[in-house]
């Protein structure tokens, strides 16, 4: 039994723009996705997430590097493992004039899955009633559910969802989140790429953060957050101006946040109160702010000059 569902080493892809300029989409990506559970694949827009996924699925060719899916080298051995992989890349793409059921029947026939499985996956994704309607009449949420139904036809061990909640309403986002969580709990591996951190943090067991096509951080959500240098405290003090000057002089980063100051970079919360008290400024409230995936993500991507802010 392989320990990794997906592994890439030194993965690289460059594109040429219409004007002939070379653009590096992925540069030496090392990615490991453990078997089982939900793995968040995070990065700002244009960081190479979709390109990496497309390379894994054999849709585009890598310039360099190696990839494996369940220990099988891809794309060479992709046909051997494709039956274990279900994927939705960007927006769901089906034949618009065919019904949802007809689209799935064609896919089922192509891979030799019995037609009755189509009804089952439509029911599993709450599309049983709308299966007879044309795909082009579906809402975005229904299209996304049909795409999930298509991936489930194969009963895959690895599901790859690329930005699955793009354009969905809050109810749709919640539904997709629960579906991903449910699949992860069934023992399947779910690789979900997203730039919406809160969404991933709620369902992911492990994450990889990429920027400029390179891996920036990887591990369990707790590990990635724990490794962060971002320790923030929220301070209530009477004189904001003086307090900001004192703390900034001590090398800390201070931001106003309503009636509070947000102070980054203090090793211990007590450092903040001690420094202010030395100048006869007394703290009335001191609230440690828990680091979250978003702050880690912003910190990492800001370090890389990827448009994140701190």
């Amino acid at each position, binding site marked *: 039994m392989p320990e990794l569902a997906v592994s890439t080493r030194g993965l690289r892809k460059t594109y040429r723009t219409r004007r002939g300029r070379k653009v590096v989409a992925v540069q030496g990506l090392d990615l490991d996705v453990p078997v089982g559970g939900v793995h968040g694949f995070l990065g700002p827009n244009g960081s190479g997430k979709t390109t990496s996924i*497309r390379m894994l*699925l*054999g*849709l*585009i*060719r890598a310039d360099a590097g190696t990839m494996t899916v369940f220990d099988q080298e891809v*794309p060479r051995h*992709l*046909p051997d493992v*494709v039956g274990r*992989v*279900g*994927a939705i*890349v960007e*927006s*769901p*793409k*089906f*034949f*618009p*004039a*065919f019904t949802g059921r*007809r689209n799935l029947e*064609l*896919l089922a*026939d*192509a*891979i*030799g899955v019995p037609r009755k499985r189509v009804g089952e996956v439509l029911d599993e994704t709450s599309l049983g009633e709308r299966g007879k309607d044309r795909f082009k009449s579906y809402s975005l949420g229904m299209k996304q559910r049909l*795409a999930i139904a*298509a991936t489930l036809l*194969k009963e895959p061990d690895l599901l790859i969802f690329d930005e699955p909640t793009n354009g969905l309403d809050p109810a749709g986002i919640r539904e997709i989140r629960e579906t991903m969580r449910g699949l992860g709990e069934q023992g399947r591996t779910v690789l979900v790429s997203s730039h919406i951190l809160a969404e991933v943090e709620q369902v992911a067991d492990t994450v990889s953060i990429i920027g400029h096509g390179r891996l920036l951080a990887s591990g369990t959500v707790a590990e990635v957050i724990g490794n962060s240098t971002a320790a923030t405290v929220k301070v209530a003090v009477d004189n904001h101006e003086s307090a900001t000057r004192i703390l900034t002089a001590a090398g800390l980063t201070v931001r106003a946040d309503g009636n509070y100051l947000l102070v980054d970079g203090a090793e211990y919360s007590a450092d903040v109160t001690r420094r202010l008290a030395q100048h006869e400024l007394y703290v009335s409230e001191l609230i440690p702010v828990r680091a979250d995936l978003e702050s880690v993500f912003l910190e990492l991507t800001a370090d890389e000059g990827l448009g994140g802010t701190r």
Partner: protein
Amino acid sequence: MIRLTGVELRRLVSRRLVVIGVAALLLITGIMLVATWQNAKPLSAAEQRNAQVNFEQAQKDWQEHGEEYKKQCLQDYQSQPDPKPKLEDFCQVNPPTLDQFGKPMAKFTELMPDLLLGSSYLLAFGAFLIGASFVGAEFSSGSISNWLTFEPRRLRVYGSKLIAAATGMLPVAVVLLAILLAGVYLIVGALGTTAGTTGKVWGDLSGTAGRAVLMAAAAGALGGVLALLLRHTAAAVGVAMGYLVLVEGVFGGFLTKAQPWLVRLNFDAWIKHDTTYLVDNCRSTADGGYLCTQIEKTLSFEHGAWYLGIVVVVLIALGAGVFQRRDIS
């Protein structure tokens, strides 16, 4: 591969555009039959009277000027550049006959080959459109990327699509040509004559129809290849139409000697089992003028078969190479 081809065939017949296209081909075949009926219909009494009057006028003209016309033609023949055409071909100056002014009786053996040729153009064009839209729709909707996540072996995917686009047209072409053959035979049998329709004639007509069916299948596949290369149905149709108008039409019209290397003439040679074309033969004359005549040449069936075969194979191989290496976004 067989399973994939079966799926593609089911998708092909499920497409609304295919149903509309086949219905349009059926309608045009029906129009051809109506036109044949109109053509074979005998003249009315008024039309016959009119024809008789015209014939008598022409006869009178021939009696007065017939010898003069013959002399003039012989003079023209002498000034023709070498190689000269046959005299009897060049000077067909004969007295008028009544059937030239009336309506000749429709003969099945004369009508049918031309109708089959026209129908083969129609079928090839329809098949090309259907094949192009069948494959082009996958690229414009983006569903090809979804399809490849289920079957990543691209050559199999490519092959199944082309085989479906080609074989899907076979029954359509067979049925339409059978309707045309049977319909024309019945119409002409009732209003004209089917005399002389021997076993050999039926054999020749079947051969022509069979080649038209094969051409329709090839056109369906080529429509698919072009749509795949250009990633859009409209682009494929536009390029094909542009080629036909600019290269085959304009260029072919100017450079008559290049005709053997154009698709249209090879298509004719393939369908008709040999065809003829005219080449300009021009020379300077002693008085400083420039005299052109046209010489008829024959393009063989074998030439047409090789030419079309090579075009089909090269384009299919090109499509396979591009699809195998192309990034699907």
